[in-house]
C-alpha cells in the first residue's frame, strides 16, 4: 500500500492525503455523475496535524499516503472539521492506528462524533475564533454552524494563508488533478453550482452572513482546500464570488419545467408550455423525470426564476416521482421564484391542486391556479398551455427588471 499511494504536495509542508472515489453515483440522493473525492490534509508543522479523514472504505489508502511522507505515529493532532461520515468515517480507525496526542472538533462536533462513533476517547471542543499552536504554525478555527451541519467548522492555517473549508467551496468531482486551475472551467462551474444547489441552497442567508464575517476577520486567503473536489490555489475569488451570487438568489430569465407523465398527455402539455415560455423570451429547461435526476433538477432551479411543475393524478395524488422531486425542492427552499402547475387526469384530478398548494407553501409566486386537462389535450388545450407559458414568461420578465 505504502509504495502505491503517495501524498500530493499542496504547498510546502502541506499535503493532500485523501482518496478519489471514481465510481460513486448515489451520494444520499445526489447523482454524483463525475464521482467525488474525500480530501484529507497533513500539515508538517512541529506538531504534525491531520485535517479530516476519508470515507471508511478508503482508510488504508489514506494511511499509505500519510506514511509516504511521515511516520503516521508521529501525528500529534487530528482536527475534525465535520462529523459526516464521508469525512469522519475513518476517524476512529486512524485514531487507533496513530494514537495522536489530541483530537479536536467544534462544540457541536464533539457531540456529533460521540453520537456517530461512541468512541472511548476524549475529543477536545474548540470555540469559534480559538487558535491552536502546532509548534511553528498556528491554526484558527471558524465555526460555520449549519454550513451545512451543526458541527461544521473551517480551519485556517495562517502561515500558508490556507483555508481548510470542509464542505464549503467543494464539489463532487473525481480527478487525478488536485487543483482547480488544472481542470476544465465549464466542468468546475457546473459541479460547483450543482453542489451549492443540492447542499447549501437552503442555508443561503447563513452563507451571506459567513462571507461578511470572514471578510471582517481581516485574514488573507490565498488557497481554499475543501473536502471534496479540487483545491483553489489561484483566483480564490471565483468560488467566493460564486457563493455570494448563489446566496443572493436573484431571479434570472430562465424556467424549469419539470414533470412526469403516464401516457404522454402531461408531456404534451409540458412541451406546449415550453413553447409559450420560449416565445415570451425565457430560456427553458424541460425536465422529464423519467430522464432527469432530482439533483439535476435542483441544479437548474438554482439558476432559474420560474418553476413550472406537471403531474398526472394517480389514485387521487400527484405521481410519486413528482412528489419525490417536489419534496426534495421544498427542502432546498429556493427563493424569489414564480411558478405554475399543470397536468392531465382521468376523473378526480387532485394533482394540480396539490402541487399548487405545495409551491405556495414554498413561497413560489403562482401565476395561475394551474391547468388540468382530461385525458389527451386537444388543440385548444395545448393553446391554453402555450398561453400559460407566455404568462409565466411575462411575470418573470417583470421580476428580472
Amino acid at each position, binding site marked *: 500500500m505504502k509504495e502505491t499511494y503517495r501524498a500530493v504536495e499542496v504547498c510546502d509542508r502541506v499535503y493532500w492525503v485523501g482518496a478519489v472515489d471514481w465510481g460513486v453515483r448515489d451520494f444520499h440522493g445526489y447523482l454524483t455523475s463525475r464521482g467525488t473525492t474525500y480530501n484529507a490534509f497533513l500539515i508538517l508543522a512541529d506538531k504534525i496535524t491531520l485535517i479530516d479523514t476519508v470515507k471508511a472504505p478508503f482508510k488504508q489508502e489514506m494511511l499509505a499516503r500519510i506514511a509516504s511522507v511521515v511516520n503516521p505515529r508521529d501525528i500529534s493532532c487530528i482536527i475534525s472539521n465535520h462529523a459526516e461520515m464521508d469525512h469522519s468515517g475513518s476517524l476512529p480507525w486512524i485514531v487507533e492506528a496513530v494514537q495522536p496526542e489530541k483530537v479536536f472538533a467544534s462544540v*457541536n462536533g464533539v457531540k456529533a462524533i460521540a453520537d456517530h462513533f461512541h468512541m472511548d476517547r476524549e475529543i477536545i471542543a474548540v470555540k469559534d475564533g480559538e487558535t491552536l499552536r502546532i509548534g511553528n504554525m498556528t491554526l484558527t478555527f471558524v465555526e460555520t454552524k449549519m454550513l451545512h451541519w*451543526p458541527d461544521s467548522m473551517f480551519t485556517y492555517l495562517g502561515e500558508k494563508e490556507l483555508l481548510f473549508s470542509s464542505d464549503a467551496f467543494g464539489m463532487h468531482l473525481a480527478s487525478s488533478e488536485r487543483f482547480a486551475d488544472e481542470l476544465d472551467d465549464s466542468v468546475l462551474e457546473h459541479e460547483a453550482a450543482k453542489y451549492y444547489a443540492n447542499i447549501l441552497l437552503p442555508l443561503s*442567508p447563513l452563507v451571506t452572513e459567513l462571507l461578511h464575517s470572514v471578510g471582517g476577520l481581516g485574514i488573507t486567503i490565498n488557497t481554499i482546500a475543501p473536502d471534496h473536489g479540487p483545491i483553489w490555489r489561484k483566483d480564490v475569488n471565483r468560488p467566493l464570488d460564486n457563493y455570494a451570487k448563489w446566496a443572493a438568489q436573484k431571479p434570472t430569465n430562465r424556467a424549469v419545467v419539470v414533470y412526469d407523465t403516464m401516457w404522454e398527455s402531461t408531456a404534451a402539455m409540458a412541451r406546449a408550455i415550453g413553447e409559450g415560455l420560449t416565445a415570451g423570451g425565457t430560456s427553458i429547461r424541460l425536465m422529464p423525470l423519467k430522464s432527469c435526476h432530482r439533483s439535476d433538477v435542483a441544479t437548474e432551479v438554482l439558476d432559474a426564476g420560474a418553476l413550472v411543475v406537471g403531474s398526472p393524478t394517480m389514485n387521487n395524488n400527484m405521481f410519486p416521482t413528482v412528489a419525490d422531486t417536489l419534496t426534495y425542492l421544498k427542502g432546498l427552499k429556493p427563493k424569489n421564484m414564480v411558478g405554475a402547475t399543470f397536468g392531465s387526469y382521468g376523473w378526480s384530478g387532485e394533482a394540480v391542486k396539490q402541487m399548487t398548494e405545495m409551491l405556495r407553501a414554498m413561497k413560489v409566486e403562482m401565476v395561475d391556479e394551474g391547468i388540468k386537462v382530461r385525458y389527451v389535450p386537444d388543440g385548444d388545450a395545448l393553446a391554453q398551455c402555450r398561453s400559460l407559458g407566455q404568462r409565466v414568461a411575462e411575470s418573470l420578465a417583470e421580476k428580472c427588471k
Partner: protein
Amino acid sequence: MKKYVCQVCGYVYDPDKGDPDSGVDPGTAFEDLPDDWVCPVCGASKDQFEEETG
C-alpha cells in the same frame, strides 16, 4: 426580554426582531411563541432552545 439560542445550530431568537417570515411579530417573547414554532434555520423545536447567557 431574553434571547434564546438554538442548541442544534446556534440561531439566536431575538424577541425584539421576532421571526416575521414565520408570522411572528417583533416584540414577541420566546415564551409566547406558539408550541409548534421551530428554528427558522434548522427546524429544531422550541424545547431545543436555551436562554442566552452572558
